[in-house]
Every structure is written in structure tokens, then in C-alpha cells.
């Protein structure tokens, strides 16, 4: 196709690409490279920052907490997202549209607003504790926030639409005659689902899980608000290193590690999934 174009036309189209690319290089890729650069040059050149990944118990705890919460969050969000998407695909169109509308609504609402709403509900003097106590169900307030429970809850709440929407798009593309065909051949509803439908939805499920997981790794706002300084995930820890201890070396090292981990996961996935389809480019 490109060979069709004469030189001056080619120039115009490459210019269209070049301008954004140059701006991206200067104002985005260069900043990213600075982060990588700092991780191996501050405070002294070398990999000593990265050695802390092995030597610092605090850092290991943070990483473990992050991975633990993200895995949990992803699994729950996927389950809920799949259930919602499945239901939305299989009901009458108006019903399905309503479900989709509400999921989209949740998707578009500000992450801050959502975290704030959860905070007001889950606090020691928050609404849930107030109600539970006024109904006499508990004597003292439950600790629903400033711990992993609160963080996971907030993150799941944020992630369900991120899981549900791509799964929905994927499920919509499954031929609706397949399951009835399986039933007609003698399968029970459960068998038809497990042996026919689920495998067909697997690619979408895998894409959604990878997307959800890698987005949740870098989360800052929700865990910071709901973790209350007690449950700290990696993004917040990085911010603390910068703002409070001015430890740019550790901060950039962790940021680099996070970035490399995400790229590694994506690279591994690229063998199984078309990455472009996953991000909606194709």
C-alpha cells in the first residue's frame, strides 16, 4: 500500500506521524528514561538501589502486599465482571442496555469520588458502622478501612467495569447458536457452559484479567485513601519515598521495577493474545 504513494505524499503522511512522535519523545519518553536513569545513578552509579529488592524487608513486604491485593482484586473483579457481562449479553436488549448503562456510569465516575464514598461508608464513624451499631448488631465499630479489606473493596469497585466491559464486548461476539446446539446434542446447561461457552470466552477473559491486573499494580489513589497509611501498596510507597524521605534512588528503582514487571507480563502475554486487540487498536 505504501509503495503506491509518491514521494511527496509519503512525506506528508510521515510528517503527520512525526510531529506527535517527536512531542511524545520529548515530553513523555524522555521523562520515562529519566526515571530509569535515576534508578541506576542516584545516589551513586550502580545497581545498589535494585539490591534493596533483595535486602530490604520493608520493600519486600510492600511488593508482597501489592501483589497479594492485586491478585485478589483481579480475581474478584473478573468473577463479578464475567457474571455481569454474561447476564447483560443474555437478557432482552432493553434490560441489557440498562445494565450496561449502570456499569458504564460506574466506569465514568471519578475514582476520587468513589474512594470518598467508600471512605464515608467504611470509616469507624462511617455510615455502615453507625447503622450496624444502631441496629445492635455490633458493639464496637468494625475496622473496615485502613486495612487490606478496605483497599481490596475499593479496588474491586473500581476494577469491575474495567473487567466487565471488554468481557462484554468479547461475549457479544460469541455465536448465540452454539450453546443451544450443544444442548440439542444432549448437554446439560452446566455442561454446555463449561465445555462450549467458557472456552470460547477464554481469550476475552485472559485479556481482561491481564489488563485488570496490570492496571491495579500501579494504583495510587484508591489504596492511598482507603489504606490509611496502614496498608501501603507500591505506588503510595514510591510517593512517600519522594515526598517524605526524598529517596529518589529507591523511588525510581521501584518505579522502574513496576514498569519492567508490567512490560514483562505484556511480553509474555503477546505469545498468547494479540496485544493490539487487547488494547482495542485492531
Amino acid at each position, binding site marked *: 500500500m505504501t509503495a503506491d504513494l509518491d514521494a511527496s505524499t509519503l512525506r506528508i503522511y510521515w510528517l503527520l*506521524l512525526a510531529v506527535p*512522535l517527536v*512531542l511524545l519523545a520529548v515530553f513523555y519518553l524522555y521523562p520515562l528514561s529519566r526515571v530509569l536513569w535515576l534508578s541506576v545513578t542516584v545516589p551513586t552509579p550502580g545497581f545498589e538501589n535494585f539490591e534493596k529488592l533483595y535486602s530490604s524487608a520493608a520493600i519486600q513486604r510492600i511488593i508482597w502486599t501489592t501483589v497479594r491485593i492485586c491478585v485478589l482484586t483481579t480475581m474478584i473483579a473478573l468473577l463479578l465482571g464475567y457474571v455481569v457481562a454474561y447476564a*447483560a449479553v443474555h437478557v432482552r436488549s432493553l434490560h441489557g442496555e440498562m445494565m450496561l448503562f449502570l456499569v458504564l456510569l*460506574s466506569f465514568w465516575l471519578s475514582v476520587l469520588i468513589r474512594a470518598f464514598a467508600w471512605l464515608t461508608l467504611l470509616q469507624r464513624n462511617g455510615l455502615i458502622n453507625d447503622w450496624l451499631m444502631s441496629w445492635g448488631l455490633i458493639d464496637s465499630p468494625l475496622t473496615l478501612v485502613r486495612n487490606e479489606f478496605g483497599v481490596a473493596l475499593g479496588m474491586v469497585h473500581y476494577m469491575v467495569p474495567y473487567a466487565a466491559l471488554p468481557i462484554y464486548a468479547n461475549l457479544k461476539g460469541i455465536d448465540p447458536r452454539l450453546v443451544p446446539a450443544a444442548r440439542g446434542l444432549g448437554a446439560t446447561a452446566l455442561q454446555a457452559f463449561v465445555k462450549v461457552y467458557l472456552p470460547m470466552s477464554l481469550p476475552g477473559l485472559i485479556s481482561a484479567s491481564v489488563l485488570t491486573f496490570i492496571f491495579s499494580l500501579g494504583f495510587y489513589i484508591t489504596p492511598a485513601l482507603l489504606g490509611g497509611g496502614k496498608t501501603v501498596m507500591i505506588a503510595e510507597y*514510591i510517593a512517600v519515598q519522594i515526598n517524605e524521605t526524598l529517596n529518589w534512588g529507591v523511588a525510581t528503582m521501584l518505579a522502574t521495577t513496576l514498569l519492567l514487571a508490567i512490560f514483562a507480563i505484556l511480553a509474555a502475554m503477546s505469545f498468547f493474545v494479540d496485544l493490539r486487540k487487547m488494547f482495542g487498536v485492531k
Partner: protein
Amino acid sequence: METGTSNGFRITLFGAWLAILFLTLPLVVVFPISFTPHRYLSLPDGAWSLRHYATLIDDPSWRNSIRDSLITGVASTVIAVVLGTMTAIGCWRLSSRLSETVRILMLTPMIVPSIVHALGFYQVWVQFNLIDTYTGLIIAHAMKSTPYVVISVSAALANVDLKLEQAARSLGAKVVQALWMVIIPAARPGILAGAVFAFALSWDELVVNLFITSRNVYTLPRKIWDGIQDNIDPAVASVAAVLIVLTVVAMLARFAVARRQRHTPLST
């Protein structure tokens, strides 16, 4: 398409609605709190008050933060739309392995966690003297939003016949004229969708703002964040309520437009 009303499906549907309620109901809590007469987060026990809504209008720091968010949002959206559309069009026409690589590069900001590029922006913005400036914030937001515009416009362009550009040129249009008069209008839905996404992204952005702005540029999310950190100001609930209502209205409007478009007889 219905799978019939088997028990398994009924349970699934019930579970789905539970999940949806989980998604939407917590936000409802914001509304009663916003009407509390007290100066701390509480439910209005008896007396309802609009004082916290009034704060949004009377208090200059709230007004200014809304203004700052609007300025950054509009400006960064314009830039993101221009850059994203240029990228999408170039990739659409060139369709080579090299241009595909460029497209993937342009998507990097989507994959990188906010905290990571916030650090980067901080370092480089100090170098470029852009800290705590509108320009600096606008550029950072534009970089973050561009990938979404690229995706949105690329999707719209996938349905645009490549021959349209040739047809326009055969009729006497120069390449730029063909793009401006034919191709871009054909991709308009994608451009608009991308613009909405870009604006929403900028409007909600907090992490980057925390790092590269301080007093001079003070956007709404930062004001909310600060409002939550210390004693939570119920005005935050009012802002939250307003934002929720705005989002619902915007989505309903879009929904209605999409429905009307679908029901107008257009095809042969």
C-alpha cells in the same frame, strides 16, 4: 437474546444485579451527606441544608479549582485530539510495519502507571521550568490523553474506505484538502469520542497533578484530595454529588442521541 429462564440463569442474573448494585449504590451515600447542616461529615438528622453547595460557589478556592480544571481539561483535550488524530490518520494511510510500530509507541502512556510517569514529569519539568504552570500541566495531560484519541480515531477510520482519499485527490484536492474535507469529517464520531475521553481523563487526573503542581495551579481533584486528607469537608460530598449528577446527565444525553440515531431509517 434470551437463554430462557433456567434456574442457573436466574441465579446468574440475580448475582449480576447484586454486582451492579454494589457498583452504583455506594455512590448514593454521597447525596444525603451533602445536605448535612453540620461542618463535619454526617447525615442530616432532621435539618437539611444547602450550605455546602453554596460553598462551591462562594468559596473562591473551590471556584478557582474548577476553573483550573476546566482550563487544563479543554486545552489538553484540544492538543490530544490534534496529535491523536494526526497519528491515527498517518497510520491508517501508511499501513506499514513501521507505522504500526509508531502507533504502538504512541500508546505507551496508557500502559505506564501514573506514579511512574508522574516521577518522570517532575524531573523533566524541573529541568524545563514547567513546574506549577498551566503549560506544564496541559502538556502532561495531553501526553496522557493522546493514546485514547489514537485508539478512538483509529477505530473510526477502520470503517473509512482508503479510496476516499484517492477519490478526493482525483477530483482535484491536494492531500491536506482531502484529509480536511473528506477524511476527518468521516472520522468525526471517533474524534468526538476521543475528545470526551481525553477531557474526562484530564478532569480526573490527580497523581500527576500532585507531583507537578503546587499552589499556582490547583485543580479540582487536588482540592477534593486535600479536602479528604484532613477533616473531611462536607463540601467534598457536594462536589461529588454534582459530579455524579453531571455524569449521569451526560450519559443519558448520549444514550438518547444514540437511540435516536439508531431508529432513524437510513439504510437501503
